[in-house]
């Protein structure tokens, strides 16, 4: 059974087999429910989301958030430290300035690092500076992982969840994986076969635009707080989609899979150079 709904700003597809029809419908519905909850909690756009509450108030007072949001932020902090600060979600100020994200009337918003964020309770957070976080670089992967976990809880053993290009496969079978060309989306390449794992891809080509006479994108160089504008597609294969999604943002900066943290997270890096050139293992 294969279903698709527009969520997380993209098309989320759930493909699963092995249960009777009515049970499968309930399982897939619950999987979409999990994705929808992630969307509601972690959208930068939504005024009611945890992310907006944090960005508006955490520099003033502790903000209580949903356990899932707290979990994603803990993963983000672990990745921030493991990558020497290259995975940094505190890029809200840049993305607002570059008009890639909406300004919800943030007061005195500053560029900063994720190290400005502190847990002061199990699900309570304060910011030591008026930074803004954007979980766009990790929440989609987390949503895919939650959808897979939900399907498994309903008894599904074979499934693929694909959130607009970030995907996870579950089951004994290997699935052929294709990577889309970053410039010409009508071209794809067969990259390999994946079993029980995830792949995510990021490219500046998708969000590139001109703001105030400068070329910007949603991929940010953490060290210089500048947009990355070159056009390769950066893919990471990892056991969970949360890690795969997050590490694509790191790979886009370091452009090589040599760093020890890729191995530590069980990740493989793959860089796709636009059409007519070659895709290479990084």
């Amino acid at each position, binding site marked *: 059974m*294969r*279903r*698709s*709904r*527009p*969520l997380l*700003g*993209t*098309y989320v597809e759930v493909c699963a087999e092995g249960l009777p029809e009515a049970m499968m*419908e309930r399982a897939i519905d619950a999987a979409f429910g999990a994705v929808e909850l992630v969307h509601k909690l972690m959208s930068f756009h939504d005024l009611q989301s945890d992310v907006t509450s944090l960005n508006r108030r955490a520099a003033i007072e502790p903000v209580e958030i949903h356990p899932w949001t707290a979990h994603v932020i803990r993963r983000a902090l672990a990745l921030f430290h493991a990558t020497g600060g290259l995975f940094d979600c505190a890029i809200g100020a840049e993305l607002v300035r570059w008009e890639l994200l909406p300004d919800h009337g943030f007061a005195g918003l500053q560029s900063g690092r994720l190290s400005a964020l502190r847990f002061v309770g199990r699900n309570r957070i304060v910011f030591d500076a008026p930074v803004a976080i954007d979980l766009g670089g990790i929440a989609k992967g987390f949503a895919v992982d939650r959808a897979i976990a939900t399907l498994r809880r309903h008894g599904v053993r074979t499934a*693929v969840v*694909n*959130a*607009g*290009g*970030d*995907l996870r*496969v579950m089951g004994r079978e*290997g*699935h*052929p*994986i*294709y*990577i*889309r*060309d*970053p410039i010409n*989306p*009508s*071209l*794809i*390449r*067969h*990259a*390999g*076969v*994946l*079993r029980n*794992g*995830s792949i995510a*891809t*990021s*490219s500046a*080509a*998708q*969000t590139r635009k001109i703001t105030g006479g400068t070329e910007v994108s949603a991929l940010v160089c953490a060290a210089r707080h500048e947009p990355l504008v070159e056009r390769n*597609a950066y*893919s990471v*294969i*990892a*056991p969970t989609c949360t890690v795969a999604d997050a590490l694509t943002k790191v790979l886009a900066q370091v452009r090589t899979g040599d760093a020890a943290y890729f191995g530590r997270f*069980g990740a*493989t890096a*793959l860089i796709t150079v636009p*059409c*007519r*050139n*070659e*895709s290479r*293992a990084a």
Partner: protein
Amino acid sequence: MRWTPIAAVPAALVITVPAKATVYLTTEQAQRAIFPGASFASAGRPGVWRVSSGGYFIVDRVVGKHEYITYAIGINPNGTVRQIEILQYNESYGYEVREASWRAQFVGKSASSTLQLNADIKNISGATLSSKHITDGVKRVLNMYEANLKGGR
């Protein structure tokens, strides 16, 4: 996890995305999925049904740069969106296998199964596809609901 890469990925393996017409649900299946147990009566406009349990079921189509999508939207009696389901997703590219070397991977499949390549190529990773066209389409449908359908009749 097990990842088996294609040993080296030569340019020859670049292929054109098939003109995928992925059908997720028929109109009737979507009606049952969004409003279980209800019956549906035409509301006098194409693609618009009044639901016996209250609310409306509307089928709409949006055209993007690289795709066109048919989707269904269920509207609750109070005018809020109940559920959105994609019925059919078409990538507007011509079906073409570009390179003979790629075709070789499918040696052993019969000629008739070649057409089913459409179904086989589904796990595509890439920079996120935007669903902005659906967002715009839903706004347009809700405006139409406010102007023409709200309040019954």
